[in-house]
């Protein structure tokens, strides 16, 4: 049975485009234009993944409200914000509400499809509680389970967002080698990424490591080029 993806987007063209592309990938799609419509739909059937725009018509925070509402019904439901509101503060509040990722427009539909599939896989993993997978990479104190999107540092679990996880995976692919900004941009699966965005992500990753290990100093800036993972 195909997974049910719910799309809440007030712009009919974009809504149709998303629906077309996602259906094409073999998912079932429910598209809603407003908050009321969406909540009514969710009452009938909960989707497996929700893609939310934040601004719906005149309601500037409708996406956040839907997110809060739906996560209260199903806390482990993957939620992706896909929005033109890309201010840091929106991103933070979105993620804080429990969204799994925050994507900005304009989006590449291929990336979107990939994101959906990876999040659905992740949801499956977390729901089936399959902790160990075969695809685990260990570099020093770091262990990286790319299928389960599980990450541990010195045997402590770290929660990274999907984008952050992919960036870190890219960074440690060949430890010791510098990874360029461009490579990271591809890893974010977004079409418009600046060095600043990469830097922001990297800083967040560093902070998450430092939160559990103040000594952490494996991510080195290669100014003007990118980043490098060095062994501690």
């Amino acid at each position: 049975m195909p997974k049910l993806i719910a799309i809440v987007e007030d712009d009919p063209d974009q809504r149709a485009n998303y629906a077309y592309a996602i259906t094409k990938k073999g998912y079932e799609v429910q598209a809603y234009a407003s908050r009321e419509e969406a909540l009514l739909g969710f009452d009938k059937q909960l989707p497996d993944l929700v893609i939310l725009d934040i601004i719906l018509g005149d309601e500037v925070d409708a996406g956040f409200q839907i997110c809060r509402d739906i996560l209260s019904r199903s806390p482990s439901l993957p939620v992706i914000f896909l929005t033109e509101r890309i201010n840091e503060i929106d991103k933070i509040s979105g993620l804080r509400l429990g969204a799994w990722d925050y994507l900005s427009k304009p989006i590449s539909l291929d990336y979107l499809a990939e994101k959906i599939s990876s999040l659905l896989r992740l949801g499956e993993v977390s729901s089936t509680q399959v902790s160990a997978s075969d695809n685990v990479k260990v570099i020093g104190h770091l262990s990286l389970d790319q299928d389960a999107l599980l990450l541990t540092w010195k045997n402590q679990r770290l929660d990274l967002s999907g984008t952050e996880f992919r960036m870190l995976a890219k960074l440690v692919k060949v430890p010791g080698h510098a990874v360029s900004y461009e490579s990271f941009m591809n890893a974010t699966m977004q079409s418009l990424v600046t060095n600043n965005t990469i830097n922001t992500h990297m800083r967040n990753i560093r902070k998450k490591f430092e939160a559990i290990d103040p000594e952490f100093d494996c991510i080195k800036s290669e100014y003007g080029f990118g980043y490098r993972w060095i062994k501690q």
Partner: protein
Amino acid sequence: MNVFKHKRRRGPKLGTKLMLLGLLVLLIPTWINYRQLIEMERILIQAQSQTQLKTAQGISTLFNGREDLFQNLPISLDDYEALFANPMQDPIRFDGKDSDWEELSGKFRTFGLDAGSDVDAGFRLTLGERAGQLNVLMKVNDQDLVLRDQGMLRLDNADHVRLNFIKANGEDARVVLTFPDNGIITAYNMDKEWKFSETGPPEKKFHGYVQQTDTGYLLEFRMPLDLLGSRRYFGLSFVDVDDIKTRKVRAITQTLPKSNKVGFNLVVLRSPELLNIVEGLGYAGARIVVIDSEKRVRAQTGGLSTLRSTTPDTNWIARVRGWLEVFHPYIKKMVGTGDITIPAENAESITNQLIESSLAGDPAVLISRAMVLLDAGSISKADRPKLAQEIIMAAHPIVSENKILGTVIVEQNIDEIVSFQRNALEQIVVFSTTGLLIAFVALLLFAGRLAWRIRNLRKETSRAIDERGRLITDTLKSEINAGDEIGDLARSVSGLLSKLHQHNNFLENMPRTLRHEINNPLNTLSTSLQNLAEETPSIRESKYIESAKRGVLRIGAIVQNLADAANLEEALESEEFEIIDVQKLVENYVANCNISHKNTSFEYSGTSSPIYAQVSDYRIEQLLDKLIDNAVDFHVSDSSIKVQVSAYRGYMQITVANRGPVLPNSSEQSLFDSMVSHRRDGPQNKLHFGLGLYVVRTIAQYHGGNVRAMNLVDGSGVAVVVQIPLATTASRDPSSAITAHATDRTPVASKTPVASKMSVASKTPAVGKPQASIQTL
């Protein structure tokens, strides 16, 4: 920075202007009062002059036709030598001192002193009249004093004085004054030979005192005027005996006329009858003088009252007036009508003119500053200069048939008349000064407060906008509640600011709004293109799909860049600063540049020791991105881009230089404003909004530094110089690190370079005026 700072010549301040105006307003009434007083004085004096003339006329009328009153003197004095007996106010003490003759000082005649003032046997004679007595003061020169030998009967064998006069009964009288001893004089009636006493015992009517002095005798004596009779013929001689052994008469100095025709002098006195009449007419504060046609004073009464009544006042005005006493001379000078003020020296001749004109038959009035005519006896000599004052003299002739007998002069002190006017002036001065002071202080306070308020408003208005013209605040706090025009101004400016703020907000939010509005259709476009390609595999490979996608990406990039630049300052707020080795960072960066920009070569020169500064490394990286992008965009191919890091006292400098088109003049600062691009012949095919250098400036300023762009010295290209203050404390390696020793974070101008060897051709690198340190590339 002060946005009103124009180099403009500053006029007088508001306070000064207000005070000058206020002074003018206050001075006008004072001046009018003053003019009024002057006019008043003029009128008063005129009126007084007329009154005095009338008085003089009235008195003269009394004497009109009374030739008899004037006839007791020979009208012609041709045959006589006149000895004037001046009236005296005070009694004389016969004590051998001439101090009580003060009032007649100067009124003496000399005899036998033609050759000099110390001729032997010469003398000075002063005659005074008081209470029916004739007072005589003689100062005799005599080298050898021979006193009378009382053992001898002859009286002419010692120094003595001979008096000749005609008694009331018409007989000749001869009296000798002998000096038996110092202090004593004895008078004798003499025989015709002047040798022996006629009567024997001394004459008691003569009373006096002789004092031997260094130069001779000082002799004072008195005799009753009745002795002289009504005609007062009088002669006086000093007989000098020098040889005490032979006792021969050596010289006789006499007052008798040279012609010696009649043999007598005439003692001229005031006519008692005239005096009696005049005395009855005297009134307070005025002096009446009757002068005969020979200009002799025939009668005088009254005195010029000169002393102001000094009743001590106790009220405050009087006290203030007391302080103003010092101004009296000036006030007098102010009030005194200058055109009739006559110096005291000329007074005598002026008075003479008055008398002459009066004797010629014309009534005359004169206002003079002097002690004129017969001086009042009560004034001592020392006080005279002080009391010399203006008087009004009115002269009216006395006529008899067609003859002028003399003139009546009425004198009165102007001070008497104008004293009340001067008091008024003083009060005006007191009140005006007090009023002026109060008004002045009030004006000063008002003007000061006004200026202070305006200054405050100006300061706050200046502070509302920073040096780059951005609004810091949208309301003013000072003066906003004031009800006057300044309040209106403040409210108006505040309203202006808030409107400007709204507009600014709109402008600032414009890129975000734009991005927001553009991203949705862009997303539609982008997803539609992707779906189109998906749906129709035949056009998937079409180059138009690709170019459409590129177009979408570019629009997205444009909007993103704009929004990023607009958000930069906000984003910087949340940036974390740490002390890092910037030299290492830049070196690392340039090394990576050689990888990321394959077609361009980079040259790096830096310091050997670390340079620590408190920075956000990502932002410095971003800054370098923009600088390098800019340099790469404009560099001439095959030339290398030179990056240099150097440290000076307190700040570090990053220079990025490239060869290529130079900057037009005067664009070196505007270059860093957003949306400004100056190098026209730059690459056309790249995204170019002029945002890069704006980002550089914003980041540099956020680090407390600055940025300048300038053409290279040889004109071959452009260098951009970023200066950032060093960290104040070196946390990592203080021994070798270059850090600032100054405590301020802002760069200090004109410091000596610490590492000047690092700069290729730097002259005096300073934050204020950085030098392009790369001349050749």
